[in-house]
């Protein structure tokens, strides 16, 4: 990738938004700093001013009092259009331009900035690949031809096009169905690990906030900041009754969102292939945590749980007792993995890596064990 723009620091300095005719401000004296390269989630109930606060950063909503500084420079001193070209902007309804192809949509800001055609073309393809879309396939299509999930990815790609130092995202996955939302969240986090942008992310969903945020700013009605802290601290030391209430009574379970499957010790199950000598399989069974062999294909991808009949002869035969579902990914957060296990009404499931190869077994006991790990050892993100 070409040299990336360094991520910017963002500082709210007693930023206030007052609408004429209303007694209470929409955002009241918001002060917080987002360190470069981190995701700050603004979360709170409806009407708490989180979206307004975000929109003040790129001056879609003007600041009444106070200031917002991007890398130390006040945003009030820049012309809005110019400022916005340096800030990525992703909204819930996505807002792709229906009359432009995907490629042209993504190229919007580079075009505004006057990049030359070749550079733009290369950048568009790079970005589409970055958000897991096939450039050759998608580039010349129109938004109407894409699914909701695909459109949202294009929205993110478009925001990243000019490599801005800051990204603003307003409930970007809110309009997507829950399954795809989870995938998009994971993908975005993977992306963020690579590109490390400073992100302001607005959501009303505390679970999403905990999953996505490096720092979380909980806002209450009237645009006031209730608490600004990393997720672990928020869960373990809520600042006041409002925060405690908003985070929810299931704080302990929520901690599961802070860990990923790859972070914990998984159980082992014997991985067998068709045609393997049964004697070897029995040997593996001795040492394994799970007493049922998992049949895998030549690449190591799970095919199914082997039944006893499969071990009847000299060599392993493909006789399955059940399918290897749900397939858990290494990158899944524990909370989602637990939900999948419960949903599938199974005690354990195979974990696969990025290439789909079996890497271990996740069970409810394993998760339970992770919950018992002392507080201090819970990773920060």
């Amino acid at each position, binding site marked *: 990738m070409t040299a990336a723009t360094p991520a910017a620091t963002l500082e709210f300095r007693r930023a206030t938004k007052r609408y004429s005719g209303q007694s209470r401000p929409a955002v009241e004296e918001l002060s917080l700093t987002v360190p470069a390269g981190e995701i700050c989630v603004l979360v709170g109930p409806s009407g708490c001013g989180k979206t307004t606060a975000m929109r003040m950063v790129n001056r879609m909503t003007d600041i009444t009092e106070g200031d917002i500084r991007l890398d130390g420079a006040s945003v009030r001193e820049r012309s809005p*259009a110019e400022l916005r*070209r340096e800030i990525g902007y992703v*909204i819930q*309804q*996505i807002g792709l*331009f229906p*009359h432009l192809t995907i490629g042209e949509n993504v190229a919007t800001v580079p075009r505004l900035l006057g990049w030359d055609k070749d550079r733009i073309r290369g950048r568009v393809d790079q970005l589409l690949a970055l958000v897991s879309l096939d450039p050759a396939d998608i580039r010349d*299509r*129109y938004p109407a031809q894409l699914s909701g999930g695909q459109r949202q990815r294009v929205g993110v790609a478009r925001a990243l096009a000019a490599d801005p130092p800051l990204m603003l995202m307003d409930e970007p996955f809110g309009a997507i169905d829950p399954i795809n939302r989870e995938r998009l969240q994971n993908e975005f986090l993977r992306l963020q690990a690579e590109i490390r942008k400073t992100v302001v992310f607005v959501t009303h969903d505390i679970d999403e906030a905990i999953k996505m945020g490096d720092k979380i700013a909980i806002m209450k009605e009237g645009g006031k900041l209730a608490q600004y802290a990393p997720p672990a601290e928020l869960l373990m030391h809520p600042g006041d009754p409002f925060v405690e209430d908003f985070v929810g009574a299931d704080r302990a379970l929520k901690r599961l969102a802070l860990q990923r499957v790859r972070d914990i010790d998984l159980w082992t199950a014997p991985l067998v292939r068709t045609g393997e000598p049964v004697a070897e399989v029995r040997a593996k069974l001795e040492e394994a945590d799970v007493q049922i062999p998992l049949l895998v294909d030549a690449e190591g991808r799970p095919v199914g749980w082997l039944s006893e009949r499969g071990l009847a002869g000299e060599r392993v035969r493909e006789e399955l007792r059940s399918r290897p579902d749900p397939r858990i990914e290494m990158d899944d957060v524990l909370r989602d993995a637990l939900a999948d296990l419960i949903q599938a009404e199974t005690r354990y499931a195979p974990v696969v890596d990025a290439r789909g190869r079996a890497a271990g077994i996740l069970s409810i006991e394993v998760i339970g064990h992770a919950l018992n790990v002392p507080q201090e050892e819970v990773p920060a993100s």
Partner: protein
Amino acid sequence: MILELAQVQIHGRSGGGSCVQNDGFCPDWITSNLDRYVDPFLQQVFLVVVSVAVGFLIAGALALLAHRRRWLVGPIIGVTGVLYTIPSLAAFFLLQPITGRGKLTATIALVGYTLLIIFRNVTTGLRGVPEEAKDAGRGLGFTDNQLLWRVEVPLALPEIMAGLRIASTTTVGLATLAFFAGAGGLGERFVGSQIVFKSNVVVAGGLCVLLAIALDLVILGAQRVLTPWTRARSA
């Protein structure tokens, strides 16, 4: 009442035999007299194209003006509405003391008629642009002008073109009357006794209808070319 009949005198026509004498539909007469229709037809085409083009420019400008100043919409609709309602024949003569007779008068009256239609369609088209596309556009860094020309107008094109189609087909009809303003056109083929001559009426009327359809198709074709995204089917 005698006056009206005096206006329309049925008198015999020269040549052509009994078909023509009886004001019938005579293919022979038509083929040998087609050249009579060429000039009026061309005059009419010219009038229509100029009037719609000028109307489009004026109404388009008004719509852009009213786009950011909503309060202008009411008054503009009021004025263009009156221009639309006044029958064109009357308009030709109301203009006569000011612009006399001829192509200018006819064009002004015809332009006046198109204003309401085009203004309404441009404005509706602009209003129909999805709000999220505008929000995203502004957020990405478009200035107001850039947003207008690169996002709002293209997305309003289908509605705008629809307005142009309506305006041009109706203007063809009205331009038929331009003859009475002294501006030529196929209207001359409908006066006096010619109005009962079937062959004549079919040709002149047919040419008008063909012109209207042709213009409609041309604009429709242009719309297809200019708005490829409207044809993209969902995945």
